[in-house]
């Protein structure tokens, strides 16, 4: 593995909850400015992988290098310094319900980038427009929004500080097809124009094809296939075949 040039390099990542082994040695590598999409069944540990990378869960074993630094061994201020350039969209949006929408979006700008509130507010309105949200929702509380709208506010919050590395946990789930297309565009634009490195989790194969440079499939705690996005239809891998066509018959066991 050429971990030297990779933005994120994961090797042998393991994580169990009690006796339930979720990750059994995940290896992944993402180069600078690359968009990797992870696909895989529900409950296979995609979100857990992201949380390990972000340090929200402590892995049992393995190594996670971000810009060559092993983040599993970092703590406190050093870890915060690495995280300052990372954005994350949570699967459940995880908006701060005590703050209005615009302040959610401006949060990273105000708190970690020390931007003046007025300026941060203007920037928040800009990003909200980018994710297709009207101005009048900026003053609302997150609880007053629909699920899809919350997702887009979460997306706006993740990209507001223009981070170098962005994680998207199911960015298009719960959105209508047109809106989903628009969000896919937005992610592509982040990667192509701003040079961000992104890791996206999705079930939506259309979205995966649109945004991925590389696709990885996780199954039973391991990455069982990883390749260029264009190769996915000719992979000859029975797991991939079954997953992308949504067939019930095949090697993937649904009770896993």
């Amino acid at each position, binding site marked *: 593995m050429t971990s030297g040039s990779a933005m994120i390099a994961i090797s042998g990542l393991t994580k169990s909850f009690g006796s339930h082994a979720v990750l059994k040695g995940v290896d992944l590598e993402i180069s600078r400015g690359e968009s990797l999409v992870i696909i895989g069944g529900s409950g296979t540990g995609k979100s857990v992988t992201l*949380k390990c990378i*972000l*340090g*929200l869960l402590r892995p049992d074993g393995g190594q996670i290098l971000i810009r060559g630094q092993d983040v599993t061994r970092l703590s406190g201020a050093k870890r*915060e310094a690495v*995280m*300052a350039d*990372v*954005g*994350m969209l*949570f699967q*459940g949006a*995880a*908006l*701060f*319900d*005590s703050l209005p929408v615009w302040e959610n979006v401006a*949060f*990273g700008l105000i*708190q*970690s980038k020390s931007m003046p509130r007025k300026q941060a507010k203007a920037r928040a309105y800009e990003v909200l427009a980018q994710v297709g949200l009207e101005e009048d929702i900026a003053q609302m509380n997150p609880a007053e929004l629909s699920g899809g709208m919350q997702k887009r506010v979460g997306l706006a*919050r993740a990209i507001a*500080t223009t981070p170098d590395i962005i994680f998207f946990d199911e960015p298009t789930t719960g959105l209508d097809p047109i809106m989903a297309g628009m969000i896919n565009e937005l992610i592509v634009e982040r990667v192509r124009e701003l040079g961000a490195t992104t890791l996206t989790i999705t079930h939506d194969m259309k979205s995966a094809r649109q945004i991925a440079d590389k696709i990885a499939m996780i199954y039973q705690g391991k990455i069982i296939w990883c390749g260029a996005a264009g190769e996915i239809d000719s992979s000859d891998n029975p797991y991939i075949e079954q997953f992308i066509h949504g067939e019930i018959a095949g090697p993937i066991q649904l009770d896993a």
Partner: protein
Amino acid sequence: MPRWNVLATIGHVFLLFLQATGKLSRFTATSLRHCVTPPFFPRAIFTQMLRIGYFSLPVVGLTAIFTGAVLALQIYVGGSRFNAEGFVGQVVVIAMVRELGPVLAALMVAGRVSSAIAAEIGTMRVTEQIDALTTLATNPFKYLIAPRLIAATLTMPLLVLIADIIGVMGGYIAATRRLGLNAGVYMESTVNVLELDDVTSGLTKAAVFGFIIALMGCYHGYHSRGGAQGVGAATTNAVVTASVLILLFNYVLTDFFFS
């Protein structure tokens, strides 16, 4: 052999206790460190002071006025058995300022505030808002916990000072209206007997209790697990542990001021 089972159970419980104590100590140390190192969040501290202090005024005031009044009546009854009815004012003010003001106010505020803090932080935990804070390079100890600890520690003494005054007023009203004691004499004896040490020891207790109230709310909220049920359990545990610790530390502090 059942004998060993008993020992094993005791050992197990003891280990669990040590584990919990260790976890709480570490949590407290981390929280304290973040209370005294920048950045501070004055806006958050101010909001919390309003929520903890200002909105607790009605319940604390009511508790104090009735306690003061009841105290006056009861001491009159007890005192009259050895012709000490004249000491009602003195006893009310000392009991109120040294003991009942801080303890009762703290127990009332524990019910209101520990639970609210635990529910709020617990909900933030189970809905991943605390994780989200971390990914926005904001330390949850700095942003959520330190402001609440600081606000509660600063606010409780003020609240208790007000409770003391209202409690003494309650005693005064009962003594003059119900018992027919002389108003001027009552007030004078109250003021004359009070020493600075009574007030400072009471307010010191209040600050410690304020810290305990916020700490228990934060601790249980921060460690809550598993959805609405987990948050509910955290809320209950916060109030119970805060109340028990308040009573425990009340003794420890009283003993300390005694010597």
